[in-house]
């Protein structure tokens, strides 16, 4: 029914502007980050250094009907380049711990109807998006943000790789999005969302206000049914997220900044995990220094013999404790543009320092797991990006595009 409505609305809104707009806009982009990371400590104590190609993506943006109908496909090859995850302090989710999990191959596969009502709704923008990708909740995926290593709060501040249908409307500086999706998280890179029996069991909504160009304030709410147990018998998660984001010119360069707060409750509030994060980057010339602070809670699950992995699905509704990571990440990159600015090479180095501490008891404390509460890591690598500028993972339907004439770092057609 929703699909029929989408088609009907598309016809209604864009029929009058079809003439002369049959051209198909295509853009192929790609990225990969060869990197080396050293982390101290790791589970079981000691340190470890690994080299990986992380975040290897191939993306296809396509648009027809004057950009009113858009396709986005993101092929993520982490299942091939880092099947056992990426060393990342505090990372967790999808059965990985202290390693960031590989994403599914079909990372984004979405069809969007943009400005469906055309001039019928005046200056409003109504969009409808369906497919597999991020649900309207929280902040942009860390892959499209400055730091190499994902923050601990990835699964508190984003909901990704779900079969989702979402609608959005923007009126003036206010955009409202809502979506329904399947609650189950993927368990391996080749796995598809469990649409049968799970699609529609979870929902999210996000309100975004853009008071001035380059500034966004957003609030999100979501209920995710049984994310950790794919058949659907697990506990539900209730999620909240607030953020402020800045992306605008400053002092001859460009300033990016994000501050966010997130909270997830599980088992009817028996568990609560919180996060605050602030990060910023200033790009001037080819230089790009950046910094991130976060204080985020991580549930500790029963580990397998490979201490980087946890038993999935959980055996019970229990956790082994909660670890609060307080981390400072500082980095610097320098960009070289080649091939008429379509190819960018950005060597970088970044380091993380911080602490991990147990809160609220439990048996799996940092002392047990790592033998210390101190957290350190250093990484270096090169971002290789082909026509990657502008994509913000998790924002669909072009609701945040600025009015014509206003500067935008993310508007793309």
């Amino acid at each position, binding site marked *: 029914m929703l699909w029929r409505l989408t088609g009907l609305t598309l016809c209604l809104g864009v029929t009058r502007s079809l003439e002369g707009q049959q051209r198909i806009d295509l853009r192929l982009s790609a990225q990969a980050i060869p990197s080396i990371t050293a982390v101290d400590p790791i589970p079981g104590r000691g340190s470890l250094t690994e080299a990986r190609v992380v975040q290897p993506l191939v993306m296809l943006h396509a648009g027809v009907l004057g950009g009113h109908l858009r396709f986005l496909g993101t092929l993520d090859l982490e299942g091939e380049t880092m099947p056992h995850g990426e060393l990342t302090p505090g990372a967790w989710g999808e059965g990985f711990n202290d390693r960031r999990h590989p994403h599914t191959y079909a990372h984004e596969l979405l069809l969007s109807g943009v400005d469906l009502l055309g001039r019928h709704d005046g200056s409003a923008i109504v969009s409808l998006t369906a497919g597999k990708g991020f649900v309207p909740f929280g902040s942009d995926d860390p892959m499209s943000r400055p730091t190499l290593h994902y923050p601990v709060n990835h699964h508190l501040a984003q909901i990704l790789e779900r079969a989702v249908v979402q609608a959005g409307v923007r009126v003036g500086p206010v955009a409202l999005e809502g979506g329904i999706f399947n609650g189950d998280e993927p368990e391996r890179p080749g796995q598809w969302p469990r649409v049968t029996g799970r699609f529609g069991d979870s929902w999210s909504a996000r309100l975004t206000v853009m008071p001035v160009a380059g500034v966004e304030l957003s609030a999100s709410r979501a209920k995710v049914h049984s994310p950790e147990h794919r*058949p659907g*018998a697990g506990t539900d998660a209730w999620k909240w997220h607030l953020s402020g984001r800045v992306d605008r010119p400053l002092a001859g360069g460009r300033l990016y900044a994000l501050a966010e707060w997130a909270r997830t409750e599980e088992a009817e509030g028996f568990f609560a995990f919180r996060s605050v994060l602030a990060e910023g980057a200033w790009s001037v010339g080819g230089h790009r220094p950046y910094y991130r602070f976060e204080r985020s809670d991580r549930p500790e699950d029963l580990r*397998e013999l490979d201490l980087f992995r946890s038993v999935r699905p*959980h*055996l019970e509704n*229990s956790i082994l404790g909660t670890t609060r990571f307080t981390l400072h990440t500082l980095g610097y990159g320098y960009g070289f543009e080649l091939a008429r600015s379509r190819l960018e090479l950005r060597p970088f180095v970044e380091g993380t320092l911080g602490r991990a501490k147990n809160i609220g008891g439990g048996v*799996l404390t940092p002392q047990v797991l790592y033998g210390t509460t101190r957290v350190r890591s250093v990484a270096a690598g090169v971002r290789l990006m082909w026509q990657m500028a502008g994509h913000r993972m998790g924002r669909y339907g072009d609701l945040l595009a600025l009015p014509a004439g206003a500067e935008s770092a993310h508007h793309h057609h």
Partner: protein
Amino acid sequence: MNVRHVFLAGGIATTLVAACGKDSGPSDQGQMAKQAGDGQTAAVATTLAPYQVLVTDADGAPKAGVTVSWRVVLGGGGIDPASVVTGADGLASTVATLGTVAGTQSVRASASGYGGSPVSFLSTGTAGPVATLVKVGGDNQRAVGGTALPSLTMVEAQDQFANPVAGVTVNWAVAAGSGAVSSASTVTGADGRTAVTWTLGAGTGGMSLTASATGVPSVTFTATAAATFSIQGGGNNVPERYTSDLWVADGFAYTGSWGIRSAQGNAVKIWQLSASGAPVLHDSIITPNTGTISDIQVSDDGKWLVFTSESGTAAGLHVYELTAPGQPVFRAAATGVNLHTGTLASIGGKLYAFTAKDPGSCALRIYDLSAAASGTIALASATPIPDNYCIHDTFVRDGYAFVFAWNSGLYIFDVGNGSHAGSPTVPVQISQTAGFGGETHNGWWYWSPTGEKKYLFIGEEGPGAIGSSSSGDIHVVDVSDFTHPVEVASYNMPGAGTHNFWVDEQNEVLYAAYYNGGVVALDISGTLSGNLASREVARLKPGGNGNTYVWGVMLYGGSLYASDMVSGLWQLGLP
């Protein structure tokens, strides 16, 4: 402040000044002033000495014929008369009676048009003599015999109008039981209250304490002295691993291990029991390539030690022959399958292990161990259980297997009883019933000394942070009709959740591991219904607060053995 506010304030001030001047300033008609009776203090409800005013004319001479009105404005009570005409001496009097509430009484006299009017008389009502003692705290408490009650035992002395009476001597005396109080005699304070700490006498049962004061009836407090477990041996004896399940047989105890501490949970600890029953570490079995020894049992004939394991390539069922008590010799294993629990039972003369495959491809897997001595374990059957958070534990008795399957609830199979033609190779499902808290984890089918087989105790395992918090109740289910189990009673321990059980059927006591709540004993005699809180016999946290997370319990040789995830194996004396 703006101009508007200035004018408003000025107007209010002018009005107030004018009003005050009219009532209390000099008057052409004369003046009224208090003459006698002000500032009295007496017990509540007492009739006071008269209040008296003097009315004078403009020249200061007494003025007759002036009507003075009296009324009580604060504190209750009454005045009589309420209106009095001054005599030739210019005096007017009334008699006030204090109210029944201790405190200030205010009576106002007024004569219209006379300066100084109205005038107020203030008197104080104090509590009367003590008329009763009232219990205000500490009644009906519960504590272990020989220990102090958690709250103070407190009375309030009151007069006949329930005003608190200070300075009353209260005498405290133990009426039943052999306890003691912190002071045999105390005096009430300004709030009329006094309290003592009541330490119960040794022993168990109801105890009482009386509070008395001269001339008033005494009051009696009651308390229940509970029994408790005593720590007899063991404890804090596995610092390098988290301890999981236990079994005790033939003078030895066997404990599993779980997860990772400073060492992996791949050990079975073998404890020799001393003459007093205290566990002394004797030996260990280390199973490489596994992460948790999740369940452990010795066969009824004492010949076989069997345990299940999770994680790693060695996850599965491990079978050891006990060539002598405490001396296991490996015979066989079925590995590559994650087994959460296992239960041994003999059916038709053969020994079987009823195991719970969890997680993934959840199933009740029944292994035939009859050829284990020759190194063979045969899978007799594998019955899928819906992946509704899988299968967690089993209880097998009389040819029936009770399967505890989380959100899918309770399954009952005929696995050899014959009532439904079931066998270990072809289990026949008799019923499946969801409920019981929704997180159905473990159970025990109880056969009472009278032969009644009515109750199945089910453990619910709710959310928890292992090592510090837990939740979940004990549910009592009437299984008189296997096809229609019905919950009839439950037990809740606030702030903690249950895990594994052991039942002393002869003495009708259920012992339950309660994670951070320690261990608890419940009286399960007779008919069980409703809330079983009153059935609690005793409880104990063996390792104390912050060092207790009990996984399992087992009765052996007159002691209760408890495996505590954080503090190891304990030997407890029974309540």
